[in-house]
């Protein structure tokens, strides 16, 4: 193990980490937004939209991100739609994540017995109030473990970004191995940097999970 070499690679890995985080969070934000919209569409059983959302969820849950990215980045320009690698990464991660987030939110919403909404309305709340003050808080808290798992999953999935020329952690490692063949050094740094990125998320997740658990009956971990 050549420590000097590893030290000299650090700035490259740091840049890669920042890029991974930037696109990762953009993608996660998009995924959350998409997930909420889709989950509500399904929960409220909106006609037509519901079928579209279901098709979207099934399509993206049942295909690999790598293939989705290839399609977005290499295939779409052939029909005139050209996106930057950044946009593709964000969009790909967002679309994939949206499908997963939607499922998590939906099961959170559907897990609340309808009698609660009915009772709230019979107490004089409007549908919106019942949703806002009774259903949503419980749904959110019961979705949190699933959401955190999704975020970790999405950040891990960023490792395929290298194929669309984004210089993420994986790419940096592969590229350096290709140029200088310091395999062990590069792989060790790769593992260390993934831990730096993912451990805090995972910790944060379990902290939030504990805080929110008061809203739950028993152990209903959905991960």
């Amino acid at each position: 193990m050549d420590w000097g070499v590893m030290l000299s690679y650090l700035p490259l890995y740091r840049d890669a980490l920042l890029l991974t985080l930037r696109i990762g969070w953009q993608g996660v934000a998009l995924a959350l937004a998409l997930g909420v919209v889709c989950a509500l569409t399904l929960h409220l059983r909106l006609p037509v939209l519901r079928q579209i959302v279901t098709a979207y969820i099934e399509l993206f849950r049942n295909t690999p991100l790598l293939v989705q990215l290839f399609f977005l980045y290499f295939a779409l320009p052939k029909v005139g739609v050209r996106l930057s690698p950044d946009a593709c990464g964000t969009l790909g991660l967002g679309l994939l994540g949206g499908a997963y987030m939607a499922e998590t939110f939906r099961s959170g919403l559907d897990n609340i017995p309808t009698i609660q909404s009915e009772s709230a309305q019979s107490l004089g709340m409007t549908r919106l109030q019942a949703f806002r003050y009774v259903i949503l808080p419980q749904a959110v808290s019961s979705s949190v473990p699933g959401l955190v798992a999704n975020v970790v999953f999405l950040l891990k999935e960023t490792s395929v970004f290298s194929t669309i020329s984004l210089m993420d952690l994986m790419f940096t490692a592969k590229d350096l191995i290709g140029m200088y063949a310091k395999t062990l050094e590069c792989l060790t740094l790769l593992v260390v940097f993934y831990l730096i990125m993912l451990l805090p998320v995972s910790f944060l997740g379990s902290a939030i999970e504990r805080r929110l658990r008061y809203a739950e009956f028993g152990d209903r971990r959905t991960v």
Partner: protein
Amino acid sequence: MQSLGIDVLFKGRNLLRLLGGLWVAVRISLISVALSIVLGLLIGVLMTGKSPVLRGVFRLYLETVRILPQMVLLFIVYFGTTRLFGWNLSAEVSAVFVFTFWGAAEMGDLVRGAILSIPSIQRESAQALGMTPRQVYGYVILPQTVRRLIPLSINLITRMIKTTSLVMMIGMVEVLKVAQQIIEANRRTSPNAAFGLFAVVFLLYFAICWPISRLAGYLEKRWA
């Protein structure tokens, strides 16, 4: 508008090659899932055991697998092990190894969850009826566990099939790589083949994974 590459599919053995590439993906996942189920059952049972050390070790194993991207694991196993230990694993063996390593952990956790979800009163009643611990496991706990597990492990198959798309990165020629090769060989005659081929690959994955996850969903509802 030039052709979008669908015609290229029907040239020579291209379509067959693409399906062959898909089969590589499916084969790796099936082997890995089979191994994962066997190992996962074992790990799951051990994880519910009394020894805190054993539980700790498996917890550590599970968290490690969960936190590292599969691609990183693939690289470590394919390139790293040769460097460190001098093992020369083929890409396919490495892939099966990594997927099993990952699958066994996930499966173990599922098994643990399934075992714990069986009310302890059943175990106690069985013991009260004079069954030995082995009998309790064999006749009471495991049959119910397996039933709960089947939909979950079917889900794992689709996750694996999707993840196999990564083996291209360690030089295996699977469906995505075949698609690239076809695009390359026909670049001159159909420059837009990328669209058709990547669309077809996208749909192929969907065609394999969707029915499987539907089946899992159906079983989950029925057996829950």
